[in-house]
């Protein structure tokens, strides 16, 4: 008869799966238990990308290098768009490195559900692990690319002496975090929305491309005048990009109000993203 009392004791179940959908039941403890999986996903991302290539991870640096050189040729030399007080190659390299991290993260996280449906359909693990792993593997790629930028930056600081960073450089990691959080949040919102209706996927492809022109990647904000400036600043990335460049290159503008706006914008999207993602992850496999 003791059996009965044990089986009726509903308090010590380890997990209860319900049909309900909690809005913010974000299980940090569970996430922590799967940290090894996250790191393995990161490792997989890094080592599988350039398998069977001769140059291997060098491609991480070649890509932004070539993009920057192309920008230099087309926008600076042919179109004669000035990069203000910043040396063009430094400006383009900073812009593309930051932009690549943002757009790559957005692109992969926005396909989380559709691209991994076969794994998600077979086994449970906290789904958020996958987009998080993309953020981390993106960071590693970013750091490799950033080291290229750093070499050129050091040249301009110590040999050319035309660039002097300031103490705001210490805040740069914070702005970078905000950039990637924004990218991550938008990405998980899109992937959650596209499990049922695929339409958004088409929008996002050229949406990201267009957004680059509203971010100081090619055109420095100092070259944008009058009431057009507001279109740049309304883009939460603009003030973040500017703040990073301000610290690193000592040139640009530090918009404290717009930074507050970007921070708020990112936080709202992050909370919204987690809510929608949580809601969808429980039964997306039926509709994907």
């Amino acid at each position, binding site marked *: 008869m003791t059996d009965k009392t044990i*089986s009726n004791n509903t308090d010590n*179940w380890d997990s*209860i799966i319900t*049909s309900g959908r909690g809005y913010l039941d974000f299980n940090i403890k569970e996430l922590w238990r799967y940290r*090894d999986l996250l790191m393995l996903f990161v490792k997989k991302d890094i080592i*599988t990308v350039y398998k069977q290539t001769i140059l291997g991870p060098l491609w991480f640096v070649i890509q932004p290098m070539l993009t920057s050189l192309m920008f230099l040729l087309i926008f600076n030399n042919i179109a004669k768009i000035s990069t203000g007080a910043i040396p063009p190659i430094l400006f383009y390299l900073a812009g593309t490195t930051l932009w690549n991290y943002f757009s790559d993260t957005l692109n992969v996280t926005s396909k989380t559900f559709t691209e991994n449906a076969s794994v998600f359909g077979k086994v*449970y693990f906290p789904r958020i692990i996958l987009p998080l792993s993309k953020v981390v593997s993106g960071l590693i790629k970013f750091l490799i690319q950033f080291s290229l930028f750093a070499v050129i930056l050091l040249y301009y600081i110590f040999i050319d002496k035309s660039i002097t960073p300031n103490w705001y450089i210490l805040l740069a990691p914070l702005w970078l975090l905000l950039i990637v959080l924004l990218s991550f949040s938008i990405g998980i919102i899109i992937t959650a929305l596209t499990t049922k209706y695929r339409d958004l996927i088409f929008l996002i492809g050229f949406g990201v491309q267009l957004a680059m022109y509203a971010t100081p990647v090619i055109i420095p904000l100092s070259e944008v005048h009058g009431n057009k400036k507001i279109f740049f600043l309304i883009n939460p990335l603009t003030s973040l990009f500017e703040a990073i460049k301000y610290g690193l290159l000592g040139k640009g503008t530090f918009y404290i109000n717009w930074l507050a706006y970007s921070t708020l914008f990112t936080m709202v999207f992050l909370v919204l993203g987690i809510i929608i993602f949580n809601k969808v992850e429980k039964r997306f496999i039926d509709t994907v």
Partner: protein
Amino acid sequence: MNKEVVIRVENISKLYRLGQVGTGTLSHDLKRWWALTRGKEDPYLKIGMENDRTKKSKSEYAWALKDINFEVNRGDTLGIIGKNGAGKSTLLKILSRVTNSSTGTVKIKGQIASLLEVGTGFHPELTGKENVYMNGAILGMTKKQITDRFDEIVAFSGIEKYIDTPVKRYSTGMTVRLGFAVAAHLDSEVLVVDEVLAVGDAEFQKKAIGEMKNISASGRTVLFVSHNMPSMKALCNKGILLKNGMVDYSGTIDDTIDKYLTSDSDMADSGIIPVDMPRLYGTGEGRFRQVTLTDSKGQVKNEFYYLSPINIEIDLEILKDIPDAVISIIVGTLDGERILFQDSFFEKLQAIPLKEGWFTVNTQINQSLLPGAYSLYLGLAHINGTTIDLIERVSDFHVLKMAYEANRQYKWDSSHGFILSKEPITIKRQ
């Protein structure tokens, strides 16, 4: 005996939308959202019929599972049995948290790991070793747990030599071995296994079943889905039978399997075919109504001596004149494999005209069926092949090892096929 309940499934139901997802779902979503925001019930949870695939549903929604309740005790090995589409996979998906139920709760004690596939998350570019870590972590192991058991896993898989080779160079068999090796070394208290034993060669399957036995013998709780009844019998102690998304029976594994094999068929015992039985095919111009099997003495039976003829008598009701009927009788195994065919056209090379009314059809199976369990299938068709009526598994019968003549007994332990050939075999010295 420790009888602690480790899994309790309460009122689990799952509603699926039929047809194409993405057409018209937006309007349904809006209606559902509108109803829920006003605090009303989801309007689409009410509709949806019992999930019987033989009938065309009028509703756009169907219950893949409806009010499933059961408990599993610690150390039990539960076999989940049912026909294709009975809801087994959906149930496993809910238990392993791949998808969510529409209503109800599942309560679990301890960690649950699910093996709905062997080698989930294997990446072809990664080496065997890297994939062991990847797969183990996906299944819920920590890096340390995998490292601790790594040598065991590799030894079990039997592919030590290739462990540092990318998996894309592996044969299918090697990949499966490696995947199963990881799965077999999981630590979780509850294991959910789907048909994974259906892969690999015979030797590997034997090893896999042996390992599954070890797992259940070690006191862990296993939920197991398979169509392979012998391995179910070997592995499980409890069973539940699902039918059209509902629990039809639960009990010991032997009872559940018996129930499964004879379910759907009061028909299989009595030979009486219900008039309103849903037919998958057929124009309905005529209907089979009853089948009676008798032995050579005219006694109604469903067990027959080896080598003795089986008489078949069929009652046939014709509702509309058929000018060109062909009747066929098929003997199949209980698994649905058809092994013997006989039709009314063969002898005289002409179809039979049948007028409205009742007919009696008589024939005999005189081929020597080897001992085993068989089932009868009946077909009525036009000469051009249009099906009028088709009944599957109408009557089950056994052929015994015993024969009338004592020296003609079937001597071997297992049936080496289905039909005996009586052709002499001559042996001469070369």
